[in-house]
């Protein structure tokens, strides 16, 4: 009997049966608590926006955010202590979310990053007072036309966009799910959940709003474009395996799946679907990671977005996206390692080189850091490709180390200001070392960490990933990585030269004294950078224990 008929009969048969009672989903709230707490806090934040008087909002929101994130972090710790990072690792929420070592490690990192980022969000001492009221670096009213009547009113009223806090909480919520997602649907939803708030946040800079908005548009359009790719990839994989859960797909890939209805042979197990689908999902993730050739949004968005947001994005997004990438490659596609590894090799090499080379001629600090982040994405990819437990732990470690350096660096950028707001053009940084040695020294530390000079976290991380790559048989990647870090060293050094060895300009920027908030962020960055550089063992152990995925 014809193919279609079979399907039809099956269909009607299904309908003919008495309606089955659909069991209510069973949710392990405890194990999902970190995410739930953050999202809950975000919702409260929205309510606060609605009902709290404007005066108290800022503090209320800050408090809410900090408490929420801290609580979530505590929950993560509790789970890890409860052994979920190890033997008790499991799939929760009907197979939607994994609670295992990598997930918890990354969630912890994201939460800490979010916490520190929240501090920089809340900084209100840098911008000059607006009519006696302290304001942060976000637009007085996002919707108002730049330089328009509404904006002037909003400024006069000393309005501030306290919505950023709930937004960032939503984003964090999404990021928590992203690396833990255990089926492609959750992956997609989480991706959107953390992307959409970021699009908005990008548009909310107080100064240079045109740039800010432009960056938002670009980020949004390209982001949507990429997520479309991802979704189509999901569709194809679904078509391939008939399921979207990682384990299910992995089974089909591994050929260990139960016998299928021969009628479906045309789709199921059709490798073309698998390969194309997998590639398209990768595209979506590589976009978020900022790997070449999906990197082009990075510099523009990093430059246009408000610097605290940039810092947050650069740090947290990378963590989440790499987490998801790891899980996808290690849980879903290990069976087809020999298909994607060469491709990823290419991507990693191109990413490292392009990031390093293009950065050489940058003239804007934020763009420079953007390209440097691209180069670093390449380094991390080298670790990802290792496909060994060492590879996982090294990547986890690198992400932890890198995110704090990045946060710190961008936090420093927020402090160097002139009349037009932040002075991000490199020429204005000339002689900064003479004006304020301390700040310049701190920034130099971050740059050296980026450059991977020994005794900084950057070196430990780089060594870890390269070591994993070398052991994973990717020696050429190590060579390329070494070369590109040599190139990269050049432009980090250039900034240092600029700060210390060139005479200060007459009307150069001033370094404004931040509130304890930003100071803490920077200090934390320095501390982590040095500690992970000098005594990384404890954190390596942590990453090492968190190195195995559950499926």
């Amino acid at each position, binding site marked *: 009997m014809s193919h279609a008929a079979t399907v039809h009969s099956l269909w009607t048969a299904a309908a003919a049966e008495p309606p089955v009672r659909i069991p209510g989903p069973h949710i392990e709230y405890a194990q999902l608590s970190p995410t739930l707490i953050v999202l809950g806090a975000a919702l409260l934040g929205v309510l606060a926006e609605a009902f709290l008087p404007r005066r108290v909002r800022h503090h209320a929101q800050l408090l809410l955010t900090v408490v929420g994130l801290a609580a979530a972090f505590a929950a993560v710790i509790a789970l890890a202590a409860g052994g979920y990072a190890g033997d008790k690792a499991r799939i929760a929420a009907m197979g939607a979310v994994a609670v295992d070592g990598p997930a918890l490690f990354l969630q912890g990192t994201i939460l800490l990053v979010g916490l520190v980022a929240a501090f920089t969000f809340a900084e209100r001492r840098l911008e000059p007072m607006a009519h006696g009221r302290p304001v942060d670096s976000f637009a007085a009213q996002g919707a108002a036309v730049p330089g328009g009547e509404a904006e002037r009113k909003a400024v006069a009223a000393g309005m501030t966009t306290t919505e950023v806090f709930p937004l960032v909480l939503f984003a964090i919520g999404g990021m928590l799910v992203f690396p833990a997602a255990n089926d492609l649907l959750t992956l997609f939803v989480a991706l959107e959940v953390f992307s959409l708030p970021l699009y908005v946040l990008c548009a909310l800079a107080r100064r240079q709003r045109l740039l800010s908005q432009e960056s938002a548009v670009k980020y949004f359009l390209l982001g949507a474009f990429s997520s479309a790719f991802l979704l189509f990839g999901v569709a194809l994989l679904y078509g391939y395996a008939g399921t979207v859960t990682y384990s299910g797909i992995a089974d089909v890939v591994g050929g260990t799946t139960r016998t299928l209805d021969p009628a479906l042979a045309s789709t199921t197990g059709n490798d073309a679907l698998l390969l194309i689908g997998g590639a398209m999902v990768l595209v979506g993730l590589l976009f978020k990671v900022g790997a070449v050739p999906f990197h082009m949004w990075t510099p523009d968005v990093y430059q246009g977005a408000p610097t605290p947001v940039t810092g947050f994005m650069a740090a947290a997004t990378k963590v989440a996206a790499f987490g998801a990438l790891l899980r996808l490659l290690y849980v879903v596609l290990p069976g087809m390692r020999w298909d994607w590894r060469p491709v990823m090799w290419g991507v990693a090499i191109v990413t490292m080189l392009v990031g390093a080379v293009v950065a050489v001629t940058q003239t804007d600090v934020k763009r420079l850091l953007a390209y440097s982040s691209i180069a670093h994405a390449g380094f991390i990819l080298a670790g990802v490709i290792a496909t060994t437990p060492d590879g996982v*732990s090294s990547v986890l470690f690198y992400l932890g180390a890198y995110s704090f350096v990045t946060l710190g660096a961008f936090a420093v950028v927020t402090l160097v200001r002139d009349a037009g707001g932040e002075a991000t053009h490199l020429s204005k940084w000339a002689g900064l*070392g*003479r*004006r*304020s*040695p*301390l700040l310049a020294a701190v920034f130099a530390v971050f740059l*050296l960490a980026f450059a991977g*000079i*020994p*005794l900084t976290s950057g*070196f*430990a991380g780089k*060594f*870890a990933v*390269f*070591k994993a790559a*070398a*052991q994973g048989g990717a*020696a050429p990647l*190590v*060579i390329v990585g*070494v*070369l590109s*870090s*040599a190139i990269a*060293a*050049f432009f980090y*050094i*250039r900034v240092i*030269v600029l700060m*210390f*060895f*060139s*005479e200060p300009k007459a009307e150069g920027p001033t370094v404004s004294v931040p509130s304890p908030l930003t100071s803490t962020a920077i200090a934390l960055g320095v501390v982590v950078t040095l500690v992970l550089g000098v*005594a*990384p*063992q404890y954190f*390596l*152990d942590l990453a*090492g224990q968190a190195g195995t995925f559950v499926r």
Partner: protein
Amino acid sequence: MSFPLLTATAVVPAAGALATAAVPAARRTAAKWLALGVSLATLLLAAAQLVRFDPDAAGPFQLTESHAWIKDFGVRYDLGVDGISVVLIALTALLIPFVVLAGWHDADPLEDSSTRWRPTQGFFALILMVEAMVVIAFEATDVFLFYIFFEAMLIPMYFLIGGFGDRAGERGEAETAAQRSYAAVKFLLYNLVGGLIMLAAVIGLYAVTAHQLGTGTFSLTEIVQARADGRLEFATTTERALFLGFFFAFAVKAPLWPLHTWLPNAMGEATAPVAVLITAVVDKVGTFAMLRFCLQLFPEASKWATPVILVLSLISILYGALLAVGQRDIKRLIAYASISHFGFIVLGIFAMTTQGQGGATLYMVNHGISTAALMLVAGFLISRRGSRLIADYGGVQKVAPVLAGTFLVGGLATLSLPGLAPFVSEFLVLVGTFSRYPVIGVLATVGIVLAALYVLVLYQRTMTGPVAEPVRGMPDLRVRELVVVAPLIVLLLVLGIYPKPVTRIVDPAVEHTMSQVHQSDPKPDVHVNDVEAAK
């Protein structure tokens, strides 16, 4: 658990650096004295090492300290000294006080306008920091530990070169600054690239050990041991690749032709004391590392590469000397002279004879002292006239005889005149080379003629002849400057006449290295029994 002498020797200057940096801007002089005191304290510790060190003790390393550090990377905090390193540590600790003293006024800010910017404190703090890192590098018996400080010491050096220079003189302030930061960047990039390539090799080493020993390790002794009892065997190509990775970094640092061009810029632009720091202290780490790591980790590859390396070092010797002759700038001239000398050192190391390697080690010490003497006096001269061009001088010996005299002694040491320290080492290197590679030995000997040429030309153009106008009324060496130079000259004489104390310590270590490389000296044709030989 005895007193961790090695750690202390590194920690004291490091702590001193931080303390110096912390001295308030106004108390400039205090910072200087503090730095001097710290450097002297370090010298005491180094002396203590020499005392505690027993040349005849069994085992490669002494005064060892060992602590776990980064388990995941197989990295341990392993310190230990053999005869070679203990001597070089002593040299370092010995030179730093002179460097500090010689640079006493080099970092005084021209105007006391800014209160936050504290160049003086920074200058001396950086010097001490370099000392600390160099000392650790000499002491490390863990490849990774060594690598870390081998790389890290670039940063303070970089700031020293780029941040402080001679007064502008004829060239405008801007021009000078540009030149200086170019030199600094060049220095850093050259060495960084070298270091990164070495990093690849280090990782490779880990991969190999991890693969064959189960757990990756960087401990020199462990690897050597494992190779000895066959648990660890490098594939030929692997060993060669790793060797090249290591050697490249060291060759840049040394520096060996054609990787040398950063040195003249760096030494030319930096102040004389910093130049001394570069050539007499930091660069020694490179040659030292060839002896300790290249040869001991990769004996076979070392032997394989020997011919090429010998030729390169021969080129360095002659090329450096010839370029020195062609220089118009005093400091650059000395820099090229140093390149020539480093050629001798590398030659000695890879000649694979006791004389060669012992001579090379001795050479490192002597070259350190002689270059320090010459360079510092040159610095004093330059500081008086504000120009580095040879052409701007003439007839100095008429107005400043002591300065000229010390300069001449330094020069004679540089051309390794018998009776002064460098002669002994240079001759040992030549003999060591000659006894295995006669042709190269003979060609290298040509270097001593060229050395005479550039030294004497320099002396003639600057010191002799009619007194040049700008030189007129130039003050002779001041007390502080004499205090710097005199001891160095005395040392040159003493070590020239009685080098035994040093050779005594170095010899066993060299023997050990030789045994690592499975090399023994060639035997003479005619067997003259030792009783007679000893006569």
